[in-house]
């Protein structure tokens, strides 16, 4: 890969835990650092110096995890989730949502998926050393986008003319759909 066995080993450790494009970029930076040190050191000493200057695999991976787009999405969705949830709870209670003509199975599936989303988002936000786990934030965001869309579609089909108490919930879901749809491509691409 880069030109020295020590550097290749360092990059191999990173390759198993970070996205390919990030490892390509790190390989370029580490090789540049090695070339910089080659001016006054033997190849092996230069590789040692370059690796020391570059940071340990754990340091680098932890930095990527901290800034991971999936983790940022999860943090924002978890922060906004209670507000959206309260809007829906208030709207459904005021509109007597339990009287709507909906079979039990979709209600249960919806609830289970929502619980799964919360678990995925929590797993992404609490990740400190695993970049792979931060990707659960993007998966959770995508699922939540589907659930928001399904809820709005269901409202438009099976409920009587919309009562005003549901308007804040609809608005909250529309804002969340727009924000999630805009943020997801960057998270899914890394």
């Amino acid at each position, binding site marked *: 890969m*880069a030109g020295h066995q020590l550097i290749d080993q360092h990059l191999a450790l990173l390759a198993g835990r970070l996205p390919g*494009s*990030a490892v*390509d*970029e*790190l*390989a*370029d*930076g*580490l*090789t*540049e*650092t090695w070339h*910089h040190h080659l001016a006054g050191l033997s190849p092996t000493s230069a590789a040692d110096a370059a690796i020391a*200057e*570059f*940071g*340990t695999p754990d*340091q*680098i991976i932890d*930095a*990527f995890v*901290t*800034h*991971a*787009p999936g983790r*940022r999405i999860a943090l924002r969705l978890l922060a906004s989730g209670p507000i959206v949830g309260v809007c829906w709870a208030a709207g459904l209670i005021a509109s007597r949502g339990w009287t709507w003509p909906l079979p039990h199975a979709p209600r249960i599936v919806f609830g289970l998926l929502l619980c799964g989303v919360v678990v995925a988002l929590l797993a992404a936000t609490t990740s400190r050393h695993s970049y792979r786990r931060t990707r659960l934030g993007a998966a959770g965001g995508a699922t939540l986008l589907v659930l928001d869309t399904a809820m709005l579609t269901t409202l438009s089909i099976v409920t009587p003319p919309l009562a005003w108490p549901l308007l804040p919930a609809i608005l909250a879901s529309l804002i969340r759909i727009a924000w999630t749809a805009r943020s997801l491509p*960057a998270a899914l691409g*890394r």
Partner: protein
Amino acid sequence: MESHAQQLKGHLDALLLAALAGGPRHGYAIKEALREASDGQFELPTGTIYPALHRLEAAGLIDGTWSTVDGRRRRTYQLTARGERRLQADRTTWREFAATVTTLLERPWPATS
């Protein structure tokens, strides 16, 4: 200097943007520019700069493009118009903050009775 490196972390975004003010650079060149401009006082582990660059790119403040150099894939970053505006705002904020702290640190404080 470790203490300076810790202080740097709080201002990393602004410093990365400033390092790109002179034109496009790749990750290692950005790190070297910061080290040289600070006479070696600000030095972070090079590998930790890349995720910060990715975050700035996701925020639309910088734009990255791939090229191939010596058979390696290289990502080079440049400021976007939004990034330039943010850098100007950060510079103004910093000048005001630094002036205030300097005034407080250097003014003669009257003794309490």
